[in-house]
């Protein structure tokens, strides 16, 4: 078998991080090769180097046994390498066809766009690779699974023989993932080579021929799928058994902390996003909300935290009506929120750790004398205490939050939200983008809060996380809660079905 790709001794450093450390990586022609590792292991960086987005500090790349300098994506595309990114590289207002041909547009008379030829050519690609898409639809109207198909089509249209898929199932339901695997197998049958980047052990075992495991920027090993199993892969990936298993204590005599009744709300474009949500979260429980992104989860969080007005329905916190309460009131009544995008929503990057830690309580004693003048002494000592309690790695409480690592930043958010002794915590994708250590810390803290009596609403696109942490699981689909289950009484297949809008048997 001849190698399609050879990467020798690739090293890449970013400020403060050694992302790739002398990595050797070989992909045989016509195989499906899994690149496995935890968040932050260096997988995406390595493949971005292969695709010409970054230049390695050291090392060589060989494509079909010829050494190349991958100085730009254009070069990679020219060599037959295509990449489907985790965050889609699509232009929302342009149509499918326009996105596919972007950068190599067919022209009439050398000046005008030839849309007829475009549609013809792209349709031909669709048929050749058995990918069905509406070519004239603007991207923003398409569901995520279809958008991904467009990305794959894009790569194939440009003549990719080697396809790199970066965490492709992170936005798919289990059923859509199964469809993807079918498509990938079909591509292999057509002679294409596929690199499958993932942190999900089971998937990689299912679809790949060989697997290379990365850990903290280094190659741990390369194995054939027949020769390994889940446990061994897990050990390679993290160095120990990583199975998040939390004690689910039986809780007696619980009260309802959060009650949501027939909640309706519109999204940013004025279309219905919440179509009648009914939900109850009890004290001392974690209610996990499973669902593919885009089914109203963001809007639900925003309505619960007060950032979005509901159009109908009620929200009650410990039997107090808060449907029309302002965000500030809700914070005072005991709702804490760990937002899904800490950079955008959770922190103020140019504020210090200390200033970020009091956000939300900044106009109350003891941080503000009479609610007007800030008390820096109190704020500093509070900050120092939290830095200790939550092991926040920072030079001092006055360091600007911008300079902290992702995991440390999330600790700041957690520290702030959890130390308010809330009655309800709304945690939205709390471990996204964090490494193993940080993920463990966050999950432990959430469980700790639950054990102390807090009600937790956990919204996560990571089904493993939902399974591991939830006392009950609710499934959201198209703006409604379609089912609530006890984890013991259901399985991944049923949940996946519900996430995709199917009815359970």
């Amino acid at each position, binding site marked *: 078998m001849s190698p399609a790709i050879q990467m020798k001794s690739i090293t890449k450093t970013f400020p403060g991080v050694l992302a790739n450390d002398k990595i050797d990586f070989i992909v045989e022609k016509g195989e499906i090769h899994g690149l496995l590792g935890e968040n932050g292991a260096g997988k995406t960086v390595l493949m971005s180097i292969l695709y010409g987005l970054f230049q390695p500090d050291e090392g060589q790349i060989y494509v079909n046994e010829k050494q190349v300098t991958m100085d730009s994506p254009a070069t990679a595309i020219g060599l037959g390498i295509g990449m489907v990114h985790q965050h889609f590289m699509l232009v929302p207002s342009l149509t499918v066809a326009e996105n596919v041909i972007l950068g190599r547009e067919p022209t009439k008379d050398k000046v005008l766009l030839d849309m007829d030829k475009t549609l013809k050519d792209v349709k031909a690609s669709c048929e050749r690779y058995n990918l069905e898409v509406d070519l004239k639809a603007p991207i923003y109207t398409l569901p995520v699974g279809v958008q991904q198909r467009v990305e794959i089509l894009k790569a194939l249209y440009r003549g990719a023989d080697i396809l790199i898929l970066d965490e492709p199932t992170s936005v798919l339901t289990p059923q859509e993932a199964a469809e993807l695997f079918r498509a990938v197998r079909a591509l292999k049958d057509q002679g294409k080579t596929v690199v499958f980047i993932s942190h999900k052990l089971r998937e990689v075992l299912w679809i790949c021929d060989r697997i290379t495991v990365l850990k903290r920027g280094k190659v741990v090993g390369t194995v054939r799928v027949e020769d390994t199993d889940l446990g061994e892969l897990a050990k390679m990936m993290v160095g120990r058994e990583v199975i998040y298993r939390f004690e689910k204590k039986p809780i007696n005599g619980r009260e309802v902390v959060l009650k949501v009744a027939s909640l309706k709300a519109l999204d940013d474009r004025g279309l219905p996003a919440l179509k009648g949500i009914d939900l109850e979260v009890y004290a001392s429980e974690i209610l996990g909300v499973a669902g593919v992104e885009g089914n109203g989860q963001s809007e639900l969080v925003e309505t619960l935290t007060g950032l979005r007005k509901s159009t109908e329905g009620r929200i009650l916190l410990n039997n107090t009506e808060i449907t029309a309460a302002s965000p500030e009131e809700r914070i005072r009544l005991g709702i804490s929120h760990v937002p899904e995008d800490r950079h955008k929503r959770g922190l103020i990057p*140019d504020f210090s750790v200390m200033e970020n830690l009091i956000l939300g309580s900044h106009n109350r004693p003891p941080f503000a004398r009479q609610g*007007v003048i800030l008390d820096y002494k109190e704020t500093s000592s509070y900050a120092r205490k939290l830095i200790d309690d939550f092991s926040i790695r920072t030079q001092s409480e006055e360091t600007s939050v911008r300079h902290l690592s992702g995991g440390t930043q999330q600790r700041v958010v957690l520290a702030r939200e959890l130390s308010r002794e809330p009655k309800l915590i709304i945690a939205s994708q709390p471990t996204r983008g964090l490494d193993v250590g940080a993920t463990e810390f966050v999950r432990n803290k959430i469980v700790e809060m639950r054990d102390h009596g807090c009600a937790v609403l956990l919204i996560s696109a990571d089904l493993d996380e939902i399974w591991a942490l939830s006392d009950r699981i609710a499934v959201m689909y198209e703006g409604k809660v379609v089912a609530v289950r006890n984890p013991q009484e259901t399985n991944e297949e049923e949940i996946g079905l519900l996430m995709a809008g199917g009815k359970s048997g």
Partner: protein
Amino acid sequence: MAEGTEEKQMEAQGTPKIRSWLKSGLQSTLPQIIAVFLAFLVGAAVLLATGHSPVDAYSAMLSGAFGDIFGIGQTFTQATPIIFTALAFSFASKCGLFNIGAEGQLIVGAFGAALVGISFSGLPAFVHIPMALLAGALAGGLWGFIPAILKTKLGAHEVITTMMLSYVATYLTSYMVNYPFKAPGWVAQTVPIAMSAQLPRILEPTQVSASIFFAVALAGLTHYTLQRTTFGYEVRATGLNLTAAENGGINVKREMILALVISGAIAGLGGAGEVLGVHRRFIDGFSPGYGWDGLAVALVGALHPVGVLLAAALFGALRSGGMTMTRVTGVPLDIVVILQALVVLFVTAPVLIRYILRRGGHKG
């Protein structure tokens, strides 16, 4: 890159804290200082290209601005309204808003104060002056309120609305002093304000008035408000990351409205100061563009009160010295505006300054 470590190092070595504070202040304002220097350099090139001597022009400016009591007086007189408009721009900036209509807010504030100044008589000064100042602040505040509402309720970008209102302010007040409030005579101006409304001159025989005290006090007050009060915290949070501020329970729309209103009020106070302290009446076109000066000064002063005061002194000197320069060398006064523009352009991108420094280092 943690802040404060160098400071701590220096303290450990026994260096007095003032020195380390000065040093860090200097480092963080180096781009602005270099920007000013570069602006003068390019300005010199413009002068040369149009047949004037930069040396003559600049030295005339210097002697004009600081050479005698009249020059120094002019410098401070010109600097005073600029401090107000610079603070106005800075305050709105801290909330993430671009108030480029300080000129208009200054003008309506001036007119409001003039109105109160001419409409009442027989009041004691300690009543009349605050009334007039209040009128100026309210008028300016109103001129800030309109774009604020338009932005928060209707999404209209404040850059355009404040600019448009500036034109409206100029024409409206011009109408006022050409028709209803016109004083007898040729000039488009009001009658003089009552004696009781006059702000005292503090540096005879120049025109420097007590307004400058208010300006300096306001610089300190706005800084304290922004850094030490919950309101200031909320304003800054809104300016730095609106979404996170919202998540923290801050009512960002309210903050933006307050910021623009206060911004307008500050500029309005500046206008009031001009009327009550310098001109003692409202004259059509009395502002040679203090609003734009304020913008440049705010940027050069890095939105910090000390920087703003220093930069305002510089720009005041430019205007005052400029008048002498024009008289003595015949160089058109607008070179001052060109210099201001160059400063703004050089200050636009700190990356640019670093780039120039590196290039300059290679050549030298």
